[in-house]
């Protein structure tokens, strides 16, 4: 599958935003909303900025971005439509949560709006993950680990942002989230599904008794849509160096920095958490790029 920069930017940015929003809503009732709380407002503001940046980026993937509003109509069958609706419906509660927290009024309402926003954030993340996990032709993504991994990675990036913005007290939460995401990604990679379930072009052609079929001439140029988007040979499949990059940038480095932070001074500790967030963001972009690059679409059998 061809990695699209707009989709990578969307999932990295919006994933972190939804996760930060949900985590803020969950931790805010525990003492952060007692008085006027610029901290909660800042956290919600950053989360909303990331979400809106991500959603805007996702429209760049469209051939006709101005028609994007049409994508809310088919919620009965399409996970993409469900994702779009959950994303839009979740915005008003999130804005209300941030506004009430900033004004320091009605903490009860703020908590309710926050929890509703958190629920819709979780629903949106679930829909996004299910878009990939429900595609029959892409065996790699059909794995039961696709959705949990996407979820755990979003949780991790949100937890790191929370620790960076709200204080190193959230360091242990971030460390636990990194560990969870690391385990999920390893399980995703270890799960079977690298080879397409169906590699039986010979059978499809009815030439099985003659032996394997080989492509002699392809009817499209390498730049043609299907060949470039779906049937390009997967890159970095089982590539140890590429995976090592993800292990180091996305998981090992942020985990080490987050664990080091409490042992360092206040200033250095803060710097370390921000460095961990930066490394994880770069690592997440690489991971998402590989998520596409190493996935095979079954129509590739026609090109072999």
């Amino acid at each position: 599958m061809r990695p699209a920069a707009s989709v990578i930017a969307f999932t990295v940015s919006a994933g972190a935003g939804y996760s930060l929003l949900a985590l803020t809503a969950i931790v805010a009732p525990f003492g952060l909303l007692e008085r006027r709380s610029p901290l909660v407002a800042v956290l919600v503001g950053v989360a909303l900025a990331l979400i809106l940046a991500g959603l805007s980026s996702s429209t760049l993937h469209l051939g006709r971005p101005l028609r994007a509003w049409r994508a809310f109509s088919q919620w009965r069958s399409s996970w993409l439509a469900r994702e779009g609706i959950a994303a839009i419906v979740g915005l008003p509660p999130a804005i209300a949560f941030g506004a009430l927290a900033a004004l320091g009024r009605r903490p009860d309402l703020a908590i309710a709006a926050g929890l509703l926003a958190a629920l819709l954030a979780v629903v949106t993340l679930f829909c996004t993950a299910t878009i990939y996990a429900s595609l029959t032709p892409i065996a790699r993504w059909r794995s039961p680990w696709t959705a949990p991994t996407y979820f755990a990675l979003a949780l991790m990036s949100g937890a790191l942002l929370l620790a960076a913005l709200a204080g190193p007290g959230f360091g242990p939460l971030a460390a636990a989230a990194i560990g969870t995401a690391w385990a999920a990604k390893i399980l995703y990679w270890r799960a079977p599904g690298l080879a397409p379930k169906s590699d039986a072009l010979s059978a499809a052609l009815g030439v099985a008794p003659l032996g394997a079929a080989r492509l002699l001439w392809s009817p499209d140029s390498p730049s043609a849509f299907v060949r470039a988007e779906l049937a390009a040979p997967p890159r970095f499949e089982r590539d140890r160096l590429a995976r090592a990059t993800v292990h180091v940038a996305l998981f090992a480095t942020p985990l080490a920095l987050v664990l080091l932070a409490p042992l360092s001074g206040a200033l250095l500790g803060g710097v370390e958490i921000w460095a961990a967030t930066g490394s994880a963001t770069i690592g997440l972009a690489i991971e998402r790029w590989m998520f596409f690059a190493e996935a095979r679409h079954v129509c590739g059998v026609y090109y072999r």
Partner: protein
Amino acid sequence: MTALPAERPQRRLGLLIDLDLCVGCHACAVACKEGNDGGAAGPLTDIEPCGRAPRGPWLCRVFTYEAGDVANGRTIYLPKSCLHCEDAQCVTVCPTGASYKRAEDGIVLIEASRCIGCKLCAWACPYGAREYDEAEGVMKKCTLCVDRIFDERLDEAQRIPFCVQTCPAHARHFGDFADPESFVSRLAAERGAIAPLAELGYRPTCLYLPPRPKRDHAAPALAAEAGTVEDWLERFHLR
């Protein structure tokens, strides 16, 4: 509406393509591209058609394979277009309702004015049958020449898809697979038609007739004793 028809369509129009007869001339692909440049599917604009990275939607493409070893090998041409699946996931994933499957005859179509070009339908199609039209920003696919096969201004014999009409080898057939007595249904049953990648469960309507087993072309053994001069010359010539 991108939900699939609630009931199995009464008619299931589709193509039956004979891989034994196809000679790989690409006439179907060219007739399709030319004929559908206007009408329901068009325009089918190519970007950089003579440049470094030519690309653009073609709704039918012919793959060429070699199969088997040297002694028993053969070349096989595989024309590929939309199979108008009964369980068309390209339709159900569409967020806008642009993709739909007609309840009356099972044809899978795109309403281009609703398409946002998100390409998810192409990801959901195992056959690579949907192509992105960069110039238009929407997806394109085989319409089974829907604007032609129901056009009553045409002679009845002409109410068939361009690819079927143009095929010089008569390797392409068009008909109703829901009718067990139709020509395509009977031919499909007789020749053991194949649904490619059937195990994925999309239940394609269009089917392929597999190449027939190769005939034994070994030269008949010559008479052990040379009779006439002609026999002798024949044997000499065959060396």
